[in-house]
């Protein structure tokens, strides 16, 4: 460590405020000090060796974000103390081994219990818990063979930083084309400071033969709190992408603001599945992750299809509306969602289906489950533009309440500007009945298992949209998320 840095840190810790000089050009530094200004952004961009256009884009986003001070969304049914954006740290290098737990013995036993219940192998447990592992993990070799196979087909699957270097023309063309840098408070922040994420390009006519999963590179880059994902399916191609992991992941950052953009050209199909299980906080909701995510897909071409499936069980606050812009004629958008909240968790989630092309179709199936003192809100928009002749939407929103202290809310918006459109909305709210629980218990199934069984039944339509191996884990996850919600 240079003398200059030491001095910088000394000043910083002494004054308890930001050290303003010296670090910007010092690319050797591992972390940016807390706070956010142009220099922070230049630092991040320099750290990543980015081209000028990307830095310019980030700075534009930052300028916009500064003007958005009053635009932090307040319309969601979420309550949380004001976030101190200047107190957050926007770039930190992965932790060194010295700071990480040496073995599973040093890891929170509660976390280990959950891994146990999910049936996660020991090696993976170590990885997920952030244990410093020396041995080369199996998945590295798996990932390599996997990458070779994809390369043969011309499929690009890499981190977005790598894509910026290797495929700048694709990134420059599509980045921000679905979620513009000025889109919303959190997306704009992400555009300014995103650190990493995934990039996928599937060439014309190629059907990706395997589920692409972030799981494979879980021990590679620490994608951090401002993740940026870009998936492009060229004409006639198909890809299924899995994001997240059923296992709760260790994360030091409370604020998460990711952006995901999907682009499906003519006759292309993208299936995007998420299992989100960030730390929800303790029983009182302390310390949980705030998750503000902007996910949007554009069906640019005719007959394109984008399907979102999400299982949201974690985070203290979830603000998330994976949406589809149906530009191409006959294009199809789908949204399948399970949102489970327990204890003090709050979720405000749903989708937007924007019908622009003719005969565009969308389907929304939302299952909200609330327990404890949690709040679960479905918020959705179906908009039919004037040109969208023959557009159709079907929305089904079901809420299940467990206990008497939780809340479920449904806020559907429908805007139809074409008289030929057909929009249907169905909604139900139910409680797990005493009769159902008694029946299960009389058959020897204990109360928690009974709740899990009933809830899994309630979610079945969505669970069956998940890829097979994910679905099994997701079912277990549903059960674990609701532990302690009855009795």
């Amino acid at each position, binding site marked *: 460590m240079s003398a200059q840095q030491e001095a910088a840190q000394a000043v910083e810790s002494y004054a308890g405020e930001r050290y303003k000089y010296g670090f910007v050009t010092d690319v050797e530094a591992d972390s940016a000090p807390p706070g956010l200004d142009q220099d922070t952004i230049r630092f991040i961009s320099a750290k990543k060796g980015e081209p000028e256009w990307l830095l310019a884009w980030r700075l534009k986003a930052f300028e916009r974000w500064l003007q958005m001070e009053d635009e932090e969304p307040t319309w969601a049914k979420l309550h949380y103390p004001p976030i101190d954006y200047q107190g957050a740290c926007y770039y930190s290098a992965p932790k060194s081994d010295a700071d990480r737990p040496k073995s599973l013995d040093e890891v929170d036993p509660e976390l280990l219990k959950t891994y146990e219940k999910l049936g996660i192998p020991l090696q993976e447990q170590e990885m997920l818990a952030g244990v410093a592992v020396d041995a080369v993990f199996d998945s590295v070799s798996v990932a390599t063979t996997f990458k070779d196979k994809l390369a043969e087909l011309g499929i690009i699957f890499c981190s977005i930083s790598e894509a910026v270097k290797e495929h700048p023309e694709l990134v420059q063309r599509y980045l921000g084309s679905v979620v513009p840098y000025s889109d919303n408070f959190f997306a704009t922040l992400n555009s300014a400071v995103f650190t990493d994420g995934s990039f996928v390009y599937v060439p014309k006519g190629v059907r990706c033969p395997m589920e692409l999963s972030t799981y494979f590179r879980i021990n590679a880059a620490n994608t951090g709190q401002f993740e940026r994902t870009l998936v492009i399916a060229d004409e006639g191609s198909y890809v299924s992408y899995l994001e997240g992991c059923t296992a709760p992941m260790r994360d030091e950052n409370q604020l998460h603001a990711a952006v995901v953009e999907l682009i499906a050209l003519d006759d292309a199909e993208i299936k995007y599945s998420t299992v989100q299980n960030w730390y929800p906080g303790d029983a009182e909701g302390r310390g949980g992750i705030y998750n503000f995510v902007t996910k949007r897909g554009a069906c640019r071409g005719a007959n394109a299809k984008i399907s979102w499936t999400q299982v949201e069980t974690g985070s203290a606050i979830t603000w998330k509306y994976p949406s589809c812009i149906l530009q191409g004629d006959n294009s199809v958008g789908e949204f399948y969602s399970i949102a489970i909240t327990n204890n003090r968790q709050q979720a405000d989630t749903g989708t937007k289906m924007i019908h622009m092309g003719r005969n565009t179709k969308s389907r929304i199936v939302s299952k909200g489950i609330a327990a404890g003192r949690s709040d679960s809100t479905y918020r959705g928009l179906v908009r039919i533009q004037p040109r969208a002749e023959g557009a159709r939407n079907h929305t089904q929103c079901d809420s299940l309440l467990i206990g008497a202290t939780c809340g479920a809310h449904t806020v559907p918006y429908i805007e139809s500007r074409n008289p030929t459109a057909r929009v249907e909305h169905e909604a139900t709210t139910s409680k797990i009945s*005493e009769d159902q629980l*008694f*029946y299960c*218990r*009389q*058959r*020897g*199934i*204990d109360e928690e298992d009974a709740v899990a*069984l009933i809830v899994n039944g309630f979610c079945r339509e969505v669970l069956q949209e998940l890829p097979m191996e994910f679905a099994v884990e997701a079912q277990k996850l549903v059960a674990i998320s609701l532990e302690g919600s009855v009795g």
Partner: protein
Amino acid sequence: MLTIENLHATADGKPILNGLDLQVNAGEVHAVMGPNGSGKSTLSYVIAGREGYEVTQGSIAYQGQDLLAMSVEERALSGVFLAFQYPVEIPGVGSATFFKTAVNAARKHRGEKEYDAMEFLKLIREKRAALGIDDGMMRRALNVGFSGGEKKRNEMLQMALLEPTLAILDETDSGLDIDALKVVASGINGMRAPERAMVVITHYQRLLDHVVPDKVHVLSSGRIVRSGGSELALELERSGYAGLGLESSAAA
């Protein structure tokens, strides 16, 4: 096996059972008959341990244990089975999935290896055939959209799968046509065994044409007022509850 002494119980605070005594031994089938509102369903719920049914006096011993001290699932796991008068619908939960969960909970409790999907499929195929239940029913959500007869047959199938020590059948015959009634009756007869006791609760005598009980009890105003052999059921059939000097009370 089951000894009920001076049982007083309330349902939602209202006294229903008023000093009921009943002794059922292993290998026996008892019929408990009575007019509406006599406390038949309350008796079955108290034995199963349903919330809202409070025992204010008396005791129930099951296999020498204090049944009332056990939770609902403990009772179930130790072999007490209740065939419901109104089986509950559970949307989205496949019948086969539900049965497997229940059977494996019992096996786990007994320290036996849980069945995997293939083993369970084999077991259920055997039991199903005996009750004339088709495979389609297994794939549907539990009791959802089932006819009255299908629901009751489903209860019989669960009894066959769980092989209880003490089975309480709460008006399993109600609302059945004669074919379904025969299926249910053969289900009950097929389960008769020296180590098993059954209590068949019924309003009508007609089930007892097919299931011949060892003992018949008449329940009225929360007490057993007459006990006898199977001939008592026939007597009731001829003279009705009024003939025994009993009236249907208003409460169902």
